């Protein structure tokens, strides 16, 4: 099976992180090639390659680059905040192959006429951050970064910036606020699209770690090669982080278009203890769940996931077997978003917490028959009609993401949820606390 971003680390398990190893294997040649090309040429190649962002939004990288406003200075920001529950792919790329990332950064910088880049790595990733920092220092030492890189006239500075524990900083505009030394609150889009008004209100490209890691290979082997890897509309490969109740959890670099059955049962070794597969989350905690009856043989592509009412997102696949208490699972997912809400938007700040309170009450045995309906209505106030993609009442998609679990619970496991409130000891709950 074709390996793009994990190939090198596979071949050099012992020292894939070292500058020497990377260069010996032809590393930074693609960056050199990029320096000899124009912005338009590079943007065109990346467009051609069909590369789509791996941070979750799955937007064409070439397109995004072409939207970059002309004003300069402009900035490049690598999004290494990887905090979407279920996702751990960027961590492996940062830790095992940091030079691949830096080479990608050089290419993206040159392609966008950017001379200053920031690599934002979540604070809980000190080891990956240390590896990248070491690689950055080596790159400076060998003239791959700094003034006149690789003997060209091109200056490029790269700074590694450590986050400090806030999922929302993965959202690109929140990340930019964070990088500006502010609270990680998402900005309004419009008008603050990074490509137009990004870091310090200047044009900024934000790309995910995996997205950037693909660039050296695309420049090196060409757009056609990249397209040819997959039969589906989604080109190239992607890193699937498989976790939960499978025999062999892990990161798997796979080609778009294989089925969920293949991924979960063949590649990830099937369900632990040969239990029944109950449900899985296809694209990170934000995504509505899939269930075997409906989705097991769907091909894994952006469009197929969307058509089925969910998303491929960050490629995080979270598998639940039949022993799973789905109400508890839903509560755990909702709690995450409630705790990670930045707090700007009323529906997200109040609604996600309310949802979690209701679910916790249900779990504690104090559920009421009206609670399922209430769950639905509160969700509706955050994400109209519980639709996917969401009709959000909020600034960013975090709030609506909390609704995905509730929606999935009510849609696929209503009986189980009802059983939960029915079975509940009817503990009287003080009405009136909040009565208006």
């Amino acid at each position: 099976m074709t390996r793009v971003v994990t190939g090198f680390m596979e071949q050099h398990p012992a020292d894939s992180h070292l500058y020497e190893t990377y260069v010996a294997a032809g590393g930074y040649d693609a960056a050199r090639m990029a320096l000899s090309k124009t912005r338009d040429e590079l943007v065109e190649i990346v467009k051609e390659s069909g590369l789509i962002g791996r941070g979750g939004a799955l937007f064409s990288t070439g397109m995004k680059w072409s939207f970059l406003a002309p004003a300069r200075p402009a900035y490049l920001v690598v999004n290494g905040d990887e905090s979407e529950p279920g996702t751990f792919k960027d961590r492996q790329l940062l830790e095992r192959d940091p030079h691949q990332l830096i080479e990608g950064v050089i290419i993206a910088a040159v392609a966008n006429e950017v001379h200053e880049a920031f690599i934002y790595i979540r604070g809980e990733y000190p080891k990956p951050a240390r590896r990248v920092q070491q690689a950055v220092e080596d790159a400076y030492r060998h003239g791959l970064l700094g003034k006149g890189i690789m003997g060209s006239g091109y200056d490029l500075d790269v700074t590694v910036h450590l986050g400090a524990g806030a999922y929302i900083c993965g959202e690109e505009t929140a990340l930019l606020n964070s990088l500006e030394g502010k609270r990680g609150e998402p900005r309004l889009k419009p008008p603050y699209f990074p490509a137009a008004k990004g870091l310090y209100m200047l044009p900024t490209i934000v790309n995910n770690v995996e997205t950037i890691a693909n660039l050296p290979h695309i420049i090196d082997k060409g757009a056609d090669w990249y397209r040819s890897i997959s039969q589906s509309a989604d080109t190239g490969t992607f890193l699937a982080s498989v976790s939960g109740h499978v025999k062999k959890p892990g990161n798997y670099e796979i080609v778009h278009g294989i089925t969920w059955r293949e991924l979960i049962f063949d590649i990830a070794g099937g369900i632990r203890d040969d239990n029944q597969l109950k449900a899985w989350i296809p694209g990170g905690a934000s995504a509505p769940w899939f269930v075997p009856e409906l989705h097991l043989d769907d091909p894994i592509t952006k469009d197929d996931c969307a058509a089925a009412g969910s998303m491929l997102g960050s490629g995080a696949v979270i598998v639940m077997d039949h022993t799973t208490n789905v109400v508890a699972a839903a509560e755990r997912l909702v709690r995450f978003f409630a705790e990670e809400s930045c707090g700007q938007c009323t529906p997200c700040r109040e609604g996600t917490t309310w949802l979690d309170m209701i679910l916790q009450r249900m779990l504690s045995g104090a559920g009421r028959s009206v609670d399922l309906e209430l769950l639905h209505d509160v969700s509706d106030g955050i994400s109209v009609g519980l639709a996917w993609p969401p009709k959000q009442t909020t600034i960013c998609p975090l709030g609506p993401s909390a609704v995905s679990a509730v929606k999935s619970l009510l849609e696929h496991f209503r009986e189980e949820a009802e059983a939960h409130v029915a079975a509940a000891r009817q503990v009287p709950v003080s009405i009136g606390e909040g009565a208006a």
Partner: protein
Amino acid sequence: MSWSAETLDRATALISKYPDKRSAIMPLLYLAMKEDGYLTDEGMVRVAELTGVTPAQVQAVATFYVMYKREPQGRYLISVCTSISCFLMGADEVLEAIEQAAGVPAGESDGELAVEHAECIGACGGAPACLVNYELIEGITPEQGVELVAWLRNGNPDMINTDELQTLFGGRTSFDWAIREDNGAIGPYPAFPPLGTAADNGSALEPGRAS
């Protein structure tokens, strides 16, 4: 409680890495934590002075991020992930075992050791997982959690290193870690040389912005 000359130099160097000094607030807050062991009001005032904003503005930033601790944590902070993948693999039991063994309920510290629950730490493939001073252990069991606490209490290690932890208390990993490294944490904050927060801070500061 003013900062050492060495720390101030580091602060200046960090500030110089950004086009706007306000951007240095986050790294400087880590610096402040290293100085005092946790984030004190004095530390925030310092950061405010160095970045040209008000202490209230610094506090607004500091309180937004969970890794800036405004209460003393002690020497070791154990953060057990309880998000979905770890939850599915029994994280709650691991947390409970660690709370019991440490005699410290989540969210508190006994002055030496602090325990907390954490949201997803990006170790879902090696669930359940936890961090000690932000150094990772994957595939930890409740039993190993108990041993970890004992090891910290009795051994009082000066440095916490993820590869050592993993060999002693870890199990299945998210991916093949392959390469060991020996740098590590010296307190309840991430070990990152440019911040001077690691056991070995190397050359770290250089090179910087070609401004």
